[in-house]
Each structure stands twice: as C-alpha cells, then as structure tokens.
C-alpha cells in the first residue's frame, strides 16, 4: 500500500456516521477483529480526509464504539470456542483410553500365543512393542502393540492439555474439581454455559446415567452422585456421609461454574466455604456419630 492510500485502515469502506446502515457497523467490527496493515498510519487524519469521520473527535468516538463492540464480541467468541475445545479434548481422551484398553486385550491375547512372557494391559503392550519381531506374524502382533502404546501416549498427552486449558476456561471449577473432572462436567453438560444454568441437584447426578456408574447407582433407588463420585471429597468420605458430601460439593461446583461463566474471576470464599463444610461432614465420622442423613434434606444448605 502507498502513503496516500487509506484502504488498510479499519474504517476503509465505511461510510460517514450519518449514512451508516446497521450492516456497516458489523462490517467495521469485523475489520477491527480481522483486518491487517503492514504499518500504522495517521488513521484519524486519513479517516477525516476520506469522509469517514467529521473530525478527529468524531473519529475517536466511532473507534471507541467499534473497538468496544468488536472486542466484546471477540472475547465471547474465544471463550465459547475454548470450552468447546475442552469438550472435544475430554471426549477424545476417553475414546483413546477405551480403544487402547480394548485393543490391548486383543494384542495381549495374540502376543501371549507368540511370546512366553507377554503381560496383559497397556504396560504389556508397551513391552511387546519393544520386541524385535521375527517373521510376518510377529511383525503384525508387535505392530499392533505399538498402536496400543501410541494410543495410550495420546491419551496422556490429551490429559496434559486438559490440565493446561481447563483452568483458563473455568478457573474456579478447575480448582475445586481438578482439571479433569471440571472438563468432564463441562462435557456432560454440553458446555460451560449450560453447566452454569443447571440446578445443583442435576450437577450432583451428572454422569450417573453412564454405564461406568451403573453399578453404583444401581445400589440405591436414586443416585446420590454421578461423576462427582471421582472427587476425593465424595470417594473418601464414609458411605453414610457421602450423600451430604456430594450435595455440598455439587452445590459449590454449581456456584463455581456460574462465577466462571459470568465473571471469570477467582472467588476464594467459595473454596473456603467448601473446605469448611467438608471438615464438618468428616468430623461426624471422628465423633463416632453415625446418623445417616443421606436420604433426607436436613443439610441441603449446599444447594443453590
């Protein structure tokens, strides 16, 4: 572009304020978000010269309006994209794990017929993958084990990615639940926004419909917990207090998801309150009380 050319400016192609159509404003926002120029120019001056703005002050007013709107939009888009990425990552991780385990069985069975010391599972497949094959059949069996090892490595890499991005997508939820459980809750709900809009009773049993938890929910008439069972606060609480623990945890997780969705700031009080509540629940065990409240709502204060 030349020095007399204003076509690289974000306002190029835009008409003066008086003639502006609704479509113009969104085109201008898109230019701010996606435009480029090799070098900055005296844009206020060029904008006035080209008739886009009446004066420098008018130019800045319009830039203010457009940059606030464009950036607000870009932020929303990026955040939406991020929680969707997290959902993809956690689902891919589960697929890798399931497929790796399934294939490991087949690989181990095969390897067992060829080699004496073949061990089952992913570890066994890793060992077989290291072998020097002899002949076509061994080559295939060793190669199959190598695929299993690769899939398991991909699963681990996905877990690391989730550990990294979950705190950015949902800082409070990730801190409270751990990155992986946070990602799973978001995935089960179908996104951070829909998780934020669920009542805590729903969050409490999210994932209970899963085959993985069928045997757990099968023990009780109605499930006390879904995937949040994997949280230390539920799992390591004695059975008669687990209902209270999962209710308290689900209540705070729901609030964490809301804070993450609506403000994005870390809220220390949430975490402190949950720690206190859990200390109270666990103190029951130490005091030797065994009042089973898991069926009732006597301590449903964790609900929102």
């Amino acid at each position, binding site marked *: 572009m030349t020095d007399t050319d204003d076509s690289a400016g*974000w306002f190029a192609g835009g008409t003066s304020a008086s003639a502006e159509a609704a479509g113009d404003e969104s085109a201008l926002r898109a230019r701010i978000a996606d435009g480029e120029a090799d070098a*900055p*120019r005296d*844009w206020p001056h060029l904008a006035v010269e080209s008739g886009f703005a009446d004066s420098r002050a008018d130019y800045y007013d319009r*830039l203010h309006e457009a*940059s*606030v709107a464009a950036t607000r939009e870009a*932020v929303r888009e990026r955040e939406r994209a*991020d929680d969707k990425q997290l959902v993809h990552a956690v689902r891919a991780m589960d697929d890798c794990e399931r497929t790796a385990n399934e294939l490991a069985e087949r690989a181990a069975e095969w390897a067992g017929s060829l080699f004496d010391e073949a061990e089952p599972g992913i570890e066994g497949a890793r060992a077989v993958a290291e072998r020097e094959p002899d002949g076509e059949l061994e080559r295939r069996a060793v190669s199959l084990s190598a695929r299993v090892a690769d899939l398991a490595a991909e699963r681990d890499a996905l877990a690391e990615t989730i550990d990294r991005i979950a705190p950015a997508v949902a800082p409070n939820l990730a801190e409270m639940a751990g990155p992986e459980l946070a990602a799973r809750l978001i995935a089960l709900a179908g996104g951070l926004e829909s998780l934020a809009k669920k009542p805590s009773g729903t969050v409490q049993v999210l994932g209970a419909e899963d085959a993985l938890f069928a045997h757990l929910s099968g023990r009780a008439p109605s499930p006390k917990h879904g995937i949040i069972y994997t949280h230390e606060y539920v799992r390591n609480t004695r059975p008669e207090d687990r209902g209270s623990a999962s209710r308290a945890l689900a209540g705070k997780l729901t609030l964490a998801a809301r804070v993450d969705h609506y403000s*994005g700031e870390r809220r220390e009080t949430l975490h402190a309150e949950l720690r206190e509540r859990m200390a109270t629940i666990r103190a029951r065990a130490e005091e030797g009380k065994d009042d089973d409240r898991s069926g009732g709502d006597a301590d449903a204060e964790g609900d929102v």
Partner: protein
Amino acid sequence: MYGEPTADGWRAWDPGRSKLGGMFELGFQTGLSGGETVLYLGAASGTTVSHVADFAGPTYAVEFAPRPARDLVEAAEPRDRLFPLLKDARTPTRYAHVVESDVDAIVQDVATRGQAEVAVRNARFLADDGRLLLAIKARSEDVTAAPEAVFESALDRLREAYEILETRRLDRFHEDHLGVVATPK
C-alpha cells in the same frame, strides 16, 4: 490538561500492583504529563490502563487473553478515549490498521517470554521522540537464570531499535522486575 500525573492523576494507583505506578513512584522520567497518545501492551483487566486513559489522551489497550480482556472491555466502555483490542502484541500487523502511527508512549507489561522482542516489534508505532516505558519480568524469560543476566540480554535486544534512557530495578514494588525508559533510535 491534567498536569503532572504525580499530582492527582495517579495517586489512586497502587505502585505494588501496577508496574507503571511503581515506575512513577521511583521517579522514572516517563515523559507522561497528560494528554499523550498511548499504546499499552499487556493491559490485562485494565487496572493500570484505565488510570492512564484518565489522564492521557487516546489510549490503545492490547491484551491477548480473553478472560482479562472481558474486564478490560468493561473498563473501556465508560472511557471514551480508551480502545480495547484483543490482539497478540507479538504480531503488530494485526492491529496496525487500528492503532495510529507516532504515538507518544508505549507502555509494556506483558510478562511473557520475549519481552524485548515485543518492544522491538512495536517500535514502529512510536513517534521519533516518543518513549517506551517497559517493565521486564526476569522470571518470564528464564526461571533458572540470574535476573541480571536476563536483563542484560533483553537490553541488548532492545538496543537494536531503541536508545536506552534509564533503567532501574522495580524490586521495591515488584520482585525481579526491571523498569526501562527508552526512545527509538
């Protein structure tokens, strides 16, 4: 005009939270006295840049992380000469179509690896007599190296595009940070 920002404009700044506030407090020659055009790199949620916009002139605020940028937008909305941009300071061509040339000051506080490089790439926005007000965080470059060594190599890179006018450790307010004032070569 707002007069010297050491009077009222920046009293509200907490020099312990804002690197620029710390530089003012330590008596750096920032060249800011009110009304300047400013490009601010690493605006985060807008704490410091909103103070800057209150006493300076047109202020462009660049931040690349969506979460703090959300608050930056809220801080910018009521300030009609503060322009928030969700951009990566390492690729100035993505905002050179918005940010004007010959700004009076670039304030940079990105605290990520390659801080000198970011300053060099953004030198194109600065007027010949404009100033770069830069905070370098040693640990963002290399956690294991001695801060002095990190600062030296950052300054070497800076000298390719800038003349260094002043450097001083900000440790009183910000541990392992170096404050730098520079002007284009």
